[in-house]
C-alpha cells in the first residue's frame, strides 16, 4: 500500500534504475510530510542542507551526518515512513549485533524485504546453488535480520528451513569478558544441536557464520555429515581469510559450493560474493543504488584509491528505509564495481584492526 507516484523506487534490484532519478525520488519520499518517517522529518529540520534540493546523486549522500547512534533510542514506530499508511506491512524492527554499544534498530517493510530476498535468490542461482533443498541455518535470530531472512529464503526456494538460535551478543560478551572457553562451549552447544539435525534430516544447504563453520570443520562426524548431505555452504558474516577458504574448499569440503555473504542488519541486506574463477578473490558487489559502498581513509573520510584499504561506508536507500553515510566497523580494499554499478565494491573485508602501542614488554622471550 504505497502512496507515491515515484515508481522508480519500486524497480527490481537487477533492473538498475537511473541512480540520479532514484535518489531524487527517495528524497522526495523520505522528506515529504505525507510520506517521510517522523524520525527523518524531525531530523531534517536540524540538517544544514536541504535533502530535496541538495541531494541529487549517490555522491550527495555524503552530505548526511551518520545518524546511526540515534537509532539506539528512537521510538521504532517513528522509523516507519508515513507513506505506508495506517497499517504498514512491517516485517520487523531488526537490531544490530551490539558490537559498538547499545543496539541500533531499523525497520524493514515488506516491499524491500521481498526485493532483497529475490536478489539474494538470483545470486544463489548464479553460484549454482540448488533449489528445492532444505536449509540448516546457524545464524543470529532474535532481533537480528539474518535469522528472519534465511529460513524464509529456504522456503522461497522450495525447501524447508531448519534453524538454530544463535545469540551473537552473548557470544561477544563472553569473549570480551575473557570467557573464551565459555564462548567455545556455546559454539559446541550450537554444533551439538546441528548434529541432531544433520544426522536425521535431509539438509542440502548450510548457512552459518565463519567461526562456527570453522569449529564444525574440525569435527570429524559433522564434517562427514556435511560432505555426504550438503550441496552448498553459505557463510554469513564479514570475514573469512583466504587461507581458510582455500582449506575449506580444497581439503575439508571439496566439491561443495562455498559462498560468502557480506551483510548486516544495518545494511538490511546481504551481498553475495562475486562469481569468479579465482578462489583467492573475494569481492562483494552491492545492489546499487539501493545499497552503495564507499571506502574511505579513517581520519580524513576521503575516498581511498582503487586497490587501497580503508574503512567501509554503507548507504541504504529504499522506500522502506533511509540510512545514508553509515561508517561501518569493517575495513576493506576498494575495487571497481561491476558495469552499471554506482560506487565501489569491496574486497577482503575484515574487522577494523586495533594496533598495539609502543610499550616495552619486559622479559626475554
Amino acid at each position: 500500500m504505497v502512496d507515491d507516484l515515484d515508481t522508480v523506487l519500486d524497480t527490481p534490484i537487477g533492473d538498475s534504475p537511473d541512480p540520479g532519478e532514484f535518489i531524487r525520488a527517495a528524497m522526495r519520499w523520505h522528506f515529504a510530510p505525507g510520506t517521510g518517517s517522523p524520525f527523518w522529518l524531525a531530523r531534517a529540520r536540524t540538517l544544514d542542507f536541504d535533502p530535496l534540493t541538495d541531494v541529487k546523486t549517490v555522491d550527495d549522500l555524503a552530505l548526511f551526518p551518520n545518524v546511526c547512534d540515534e537509532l539506539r533510542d528512537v521510538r521504532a514506530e517513528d522509523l516507519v515512513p508515513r507513506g505506508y499508511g495506517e497499517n504498514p506491512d512491517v516485517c520487523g524492527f531488526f537490531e544490530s549485533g551490539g558490537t559498538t554499544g547499545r543496539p541500533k534498530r531499523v525497520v524493514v517493510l515488506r516491499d524491500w524485504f521481498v526485493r532483497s530476498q529475490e536478489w539474494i535468490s538470483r545470486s544463489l542461482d548464479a553460484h549454482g546453488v540448488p533449489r528445492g533443498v532444505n536449509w540448516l541455518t546457524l545464524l543470529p535470530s532474535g532481533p537480528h535480520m539474518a535469522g528472519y531472512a534465511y529460513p524464509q529464503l529456504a522456503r522461497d526456494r522450495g525447501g524447508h528451513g531448519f534453524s538454530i538460535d544463535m545469540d551473537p551478543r552473548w557470544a561477544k560478551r563472553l569473549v570480551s569478558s575473557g570467557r573464551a572457553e565459555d564462548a567455545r562451549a556455546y559454539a559446541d552447544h550450537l554444533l551439538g544441536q546441528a548434529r541432531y539435525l544433520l544426522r536425521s534430516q535431509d539438509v542440502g544447504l548450510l548457512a552459518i557464520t565463519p567461526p562456527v563453520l570453522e569449529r564444525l570443520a574440525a569435527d570429524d562426524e559433522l564434517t562427514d555429515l556435511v560432505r555426504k548431505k550438503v550441496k552448498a555452504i553459505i557463510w554469513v558474516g564479514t570475514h573469512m581469510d583466504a587461507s581458510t577458504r582455500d582449506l575449506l574448499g580444497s581439503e575439508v569440503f571439496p566439491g561443495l559450493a562455498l559462498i560468502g555473504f557480506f551483510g548486516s542488519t544495518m545494511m538490511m541486506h546481504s551481498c553475495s560474493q562475486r562469481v569468479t574463477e579465482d578462489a583467492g578473490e573475494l569481492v562483494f558487489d552491492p545492489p546499487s543504488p539501493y545499497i552503495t559502498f564507499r571506502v574511505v581513509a579513517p581520519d580524513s573520510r576521503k575516498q581511498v584509491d582503487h586497490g587501497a584499504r580503508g574503512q567501509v561506508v554503507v548507504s541504504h536507500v529504499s522506500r522502506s528505509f533511509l540510512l545514508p553515510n553509515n561508517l561501518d566497523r569493517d575495513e576493506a580494499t576498494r575495487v571497481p564495481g561491476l558495469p552499471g554499478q554506482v560506487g565501489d565494491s569491496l574486497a577482503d573485508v575484515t574487522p577494523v584492526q586495533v594496533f598495539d602501542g609502543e610499550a616495552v614488554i619486559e622479559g626475554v622471550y
Partner: protein
Amino acid sequence: MSGTSDIVRLDALGPGGAYRSRNIQTVNDIRGEPFAELSLVPPLFVARTMSALRKADPLTLEQRLDAVARAGRAFATGTVGGLSAEDYQHAVCRVSGLPWVTTEKAIEHTLRYTERAYLSSQQARPAGAVNDWRHPRTRNGSGVWVRRGEVFAVHAPGNTPSAHTLWLQSLVLGYRVAVRPSSREPFSPHRWITALRDAGFGADQVALLPTDHATADEVVRGADLAMVYGDDEVVRKYSSMATVLPQGPGRSKFLITKDADWTSHLDTVVSSVSAHGGAACVNTTAVFVEGDPAPLARALAERLSVLPSLPPQDPKAVLPVQPLDSARRIERHLLATAAGTTPWLGGDGIVDDLGDGTAVLRPAVHQVSRPDAPQTGVELPFPCVWVAPWSPEAGVGPLKDTVVLTAVTDDETLVDRLVNEPGIANLYLGDHPTHWLAPGVPHDDYLESFLMRTKACVR
C-alpha cells in the same frame, strides 16, 4: 625451506607436508630489510593438524631415540632444508639480532642434549614407577610411568635457540608435538621440525604452526598439554589452566654473602650476566651483596664495559643488536626504570648506533639502595644487571620469583631456607654461573613432571 630470490621461505609444516599460506608475514632482518617469509596458518589449519597428530600412533622408543639423535646431529652440523649450519646461524643473528655466541652455544647445547635425551628423561621418572607394564615389578604392583596426553604444543620463545632442546624431551616420551614459532626467530623451530622429519618423524608426528597473535591460542587449545613462553601477563593468563605450563620471565639472581670473597667469583658473575648475549632467562638480572655492593658494581661495570660492539653475525659478537628505533625504546624504558638508582654503566644510555639502522644494546649496571628495590625484578633482553645490598635481615624475600639463584655462602641455615623456598626454582651453590645447565638436571622442574604421571598396575 626454499629460496625465492634472496628471501627465505619458511612454510608451515603440517600433516600434508609443507604448507604455503596466502597469509604471509614478512620477517625483516634487524636493518629492516625483508629477509624471510613466514606462512601464517589459519585456525582451521591448526585444528586439523592437531586432529591428525592425535590420530597418529607414536613411533617406537628406539625409533624416537634414533630420530632425535640424528636430527640433533643434522641440526648442529648438517644442511637442513637447504641451509647449512653456518647459514642457519647467520639467519638467526641477522633476524633476531642475537649475537653469534648465542647460536654457537645453542649448537653445543643441542649436541649434548640430543645424544642423551632418553637418559635425561629417565632422571625424572619417580623411583616407584617403571616404564612398561611388562616390567617384572608390576607382578607385585607398581607405578607405571605414562603420558598425560598425546599432543603437546609449544609456543616457542625467540630469545635463544637453546630453549628448543627442552621440548625435544616430549618427543622422546612419545608425544606428538606442534610448535608455534616466535616471529622474532622462526628459523630454529623450522630447522628442528625439518630435521626431525628428515630423521624419521612423520608429518603427523611433529608440526610447525606459525600463526598470528589471534590464532596462537588455538595451538594451545588444540593440544592436550602446552608450554607457553611469555611475560607476566602470559603467566597470569595461563596460570589457572592445569593443561598449560607457562614459562615466565627468569629474573635469575646471584647472592654473595659476606663470608665469601666476591673478587674470586667476579668471572662467574660477569658470565652470568652476559653469556647468551644476556637474553636468556638464566642470565642474571640482579646481584645481591651482603655489605657494600659498590665495589662489586664497579668491577662488574669495568668488565662489561669492554665487551665489543659488533654486528650480530660477527663471530666475535657477544652483545645483542636491535633495529635502532627499538633499541632507543628499550633505552628510554631502562632510563625511566633506573631513575633514583646509582648508575655504574649505561647511565647515559645503552644504545651504540652501528650506522646501518641497527644498534648494539650495551651492558648496563645500576646499583639500587635496598634489597627489595622494584628494579631487581626488571629483566631486559641484554646484559642489564641491578646490584643490590643484602643482609640476613632482608631474608629470602627479595630472592624469590627466580628461575636460577646462585648463592655463594657458607651459611647452611640460609641454604636450607633457599632450597625450601618455592619462589626459587633452581639453586646453584658456589661458583656456578646462573646459566649452567646439564642434561638430566631440571631447568624449572623436570618437564616430565608436567608431561607424565604414574599409573598403578598389578598383574
